[in-house]
């Protein structure tokens, strides 16, 4: 994660459009994956309709 010093040195408008950002420059693998998925319009799970596994069996 960027250090406080690194973020404080950035201009206020330094945040980039996810469609334009170079994912190799994102230091968080989770975020890099998500940006790539959004850019490629990919579903957020490996399998379609996979979300059902998140329904809790309580």
């Amino acid at each position, binding site marked *: *994660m*960027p250090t406080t010093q690194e*973020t404080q040195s*950035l201009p206020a408008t*330094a*945040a*980039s*459009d*996810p469609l334009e*950002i170079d994912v190799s*420059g*994102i*230091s*968080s*693998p*989770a*975020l890099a994956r*998500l*940006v790539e*998925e*959004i850019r490629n319009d990919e*579903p*957020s*799970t*490996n*399998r*379609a*309709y*996979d*979300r*059902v*596994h*998140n*329904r*809790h*069996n*309580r």
Partner: protein
Amino acid sequence: MVGIDTVLIKVASRCNINCSYCYVYNMGDAGWAVMPKRISHETALAIGRALSELSSAQRHPFAVVLHGGEPLLLGQKRLERLLEILRRALPPSHSISIQTNGMLITEAILDTCSEYRTNLSVSIDGPGIVHDRYRVGHGGEPTHAKVVEGIRRLREHRDAQFLYSGLLAVIDPDSHPGDVYQYLKGLGAPSIDFLCRDGNHSHLPDGKASFESIEFGSWLARLLDLYLADPTPPRIRLFDDIIRLILGASGIKEGVGITDFGILILETDGSVAKNDTLKSAYDGADRFETTWSVHEHNLTEVVNSIEFASYHAMQRPSSKACLSCPELHVCGGGMPLHRWSDENGFNNPSVYCMDQKFLIDHIRSRLIEYRISA
């Protein structure tokens, strides 16, 4: 016509454990007691016919999830017969999954699931000291060791890459998120999700002091920081959904965002019910006024009905606070069950409103720090 993307079948109405936070057994509803213990062969056949017709009527496939109670109380033979019926009834594009407490996973059951392309997700709340506080047996005994054994079998099966879908944990805000994160990650699931405890404005969730408090939001914020900093993270569905929504994409599950999800619940006797989490609001909250059953009714007609459409619309929040909130498109007003109050019904923001706001703000701040705009 309401498009159905999920059909949840409660194949067993009983459970082999008795989690103290369970919305089925411990939050005021007794509907399960009048249900058959397990789905009958006749009901399974009727469900197969009904789902085949629904699939033909829709343009897009739906996912089927076997639920309960504890679905593996069916046993291997009954499970095999049910899956055979479902696979015969539905095209391969329709996924079938099981949400299980993991304690009854056997090699034979896994072989059957593999044969009929049915994956499993396991409920586990964290390391034993966290999990066993609430997920206990009927005598109050711990369950963690048996769950872990079930997960081990799942991981070691030759078809584990397909079968092992994910883990699902209910948040204990008194636990250390780092301990929970590292432990669950160590179980090797491709995806992990987290749920807040059931509760509402009239019955606060256990661990939440007030509407204004943010125990769950702050716990999740700490978990998020670990997730974003992890060089080898699993997928965490809740965070992925919120981040996607903030960046202009869509989520995949109800509870965040304003996408309408079409969920059809079939009870153990084949009757059609509402979202079972509504049980936590009041006794009978998950039942339609109209009595529908796969034995007598066409599911396409059910989902085309005014009553079903009205229920479907409940996903969207109605309170002024939600509709005027700048984060509506991300938060979505949360889960309907969390909006209930005895005074206003479901016309409230979520009881987790402050938690959601805190978490969303935290994620926005982190995105800026990582130089990603919304």
